[in-house]
């Protein structure tokens, strides 16, 4: 079973990111579960959301405590929330940051990747909501969920211009990650 934990702040589309990723996995023909863990229910408060993907029905309801994959939508959360807790030693953490992975100096043996998702979001979507770019980076690095399925999930959730902008942002994230790394060092 693939377990993903998404960290962000209220307003960054954390729950939507989990929903889109799980929906895309479902469209890829897998079983998927997504659920949030709300904090104070306000913009800016730390939020977690969880995704599970498996080839058989998913029964467990516990929070994801030992994720193989972490998506961190706000790099400054790392200083205030124990974001890395439970991350598998051979796992992957993707951080929304305009620096190279080494500069984050994360205390983990897991692979660290970065992508300047907020900048990309501002440029393409016009709003500082990094979620689809983070999903794009995840799909691009891991290949666990198809980009095509994410595109369909995005268009379903956000019909019209907003959906197309988000699809464009997703594709940009993919291009950047395919070039080798999110940010030149």
């Amino acid at each position, binding site marked *: 079973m693939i377990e993903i934990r998404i960290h962000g702040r209220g307003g960054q589309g954390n729950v939507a990111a989990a*929903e889109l990723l*799980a929906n895309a996995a*479902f469209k890829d023909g897998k079983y*998927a579960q*997504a*659920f949030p863990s709300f904090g104070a229910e306000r913009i800016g408060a730390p939020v977690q959301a969880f995704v599970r993907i498996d080839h058989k029905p998913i029964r467990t*309801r516990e929070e994801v405590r030992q994720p193989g994959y972490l998506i961190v939508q706000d790099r400054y959360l790392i200083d205030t929330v124990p974001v890395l807790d439970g991350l598998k030693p051979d796992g992957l953490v993707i951080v929304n940051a305009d620096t190279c992975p080494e500069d984050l100096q994360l205390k983990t043996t897991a692979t660290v990747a970065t992508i300047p998702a907020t900048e990309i979001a501002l440029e393409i979507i016009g709003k500082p909501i990094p979620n689809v770019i983070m999903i794009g980076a995840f799909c691009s690095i891991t290949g666990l969920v198809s980009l095509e399925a994410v595109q369909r999930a995005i268009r379903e959730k956000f019909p019209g211009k907003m959906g197309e902008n988000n699809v464009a942002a997703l594709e940009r994230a993919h291009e950047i990650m395919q070039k080798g790394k999110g940010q030149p060092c």
Partner: protein
Amino acid sequence: MLKYLEGSHAVSQVVAMCRPQVISAYPITPQTHIVEDLARLVSEGRLDAEFINVESEFSAASVILGASAAGARAYTTTTSQGLLLMTEVLYCIAGMRLPIVLTCTNRAISAPLNIWNDQQDSMTVRDAGWIQVYAEDNQEAADLHIQAFKIAEQTNLPVMVCMDGFILTHAFEPVDIPEPQEVDAFLPAFKPQHIVDPRWPRALGLYADPRFYMETRYILHRALEKSEDVIKQVSADFSRAFGRPSGGLIRTYKLENADLVIVTMGSVAGTVKDLIDALEEEGKQVGLLQIGSFRPFPKQAIYRALKDKMNIVVLEKAVSLGRGGILASDVRWSFPRGERKGRVISSFIAGLGGRNISTDSLREMVERVCLEPVELDFLGLNKEIIAERDL
């Protein structure tokens, strides 16, 4: 058709297919998405129902009481403080034998304020005379609503469908959403038996002095007991019609060869099943008895399932303060006189106010009850927080 959607959305779609004629509800977390969806369906003309806006849950319950008494299929949904605010009306609805369906998106009770999941809300109104059924996942949450209207209308008893707040209501997962005509075939239009109508004046729930009141309570009690047969029958009919098991009084998982049985209800059953599989690989035989219907309490079915089991642990998300486990008490009393002897029935309270019930904590519970009986304990307490208090 298998769809990927949020639990609340699955429930509102299926409730709409049950064609309620009157809906009244007051939004409250984590029930909000259900009532928003239904309001939208009515306003867009996709659901032919009266959606009556109110200023409180007390009024929502009162509106559907009146609507049901006038012969309408009526529905509401609430949780936590909202359910408690309805309490007075909930007793009236049951006493008047009105077949209303209510979704309780289970949430903790104040104070302190907490919006997260446990089952203290519905457990607190367990004696109101409502049938209470508990969903394991979003498929069952959706399916139970179709069954609930049928059970309610066959028994003239109100039915509360309980689903864990956030854990189910806000979880996205695949749910097989039936076609409207399938639901129509299973759930015929509501034919009320007693209607309040000015053309033919009659009264409901008016006044019963000491010569009559006790009989009304006895009759209601017996009606709830007898509803066990209807719950079982509707569950069997549903499974035949829709091709999947759902509902019923109790369900079991790997019970037959189990040396230890975990008894629980609601969404934590899924986590327990995964643990049971893991323990089986390690050579430990643990089984699950899942309560589908908490009221009526199926004590005979429970006794039959557990009569050869000497080590039982009850896991629940509510507590009778000053007493202990509510479900545990009911399970302990399911054994006839003399049959309790030598049997260990441990009791654990878990997951209050949204505390995560981890597989690790459940594993610790299993290891403990394999060593000694546990009269009552709270799973996963933070000892540092309670250490400073004089206990």
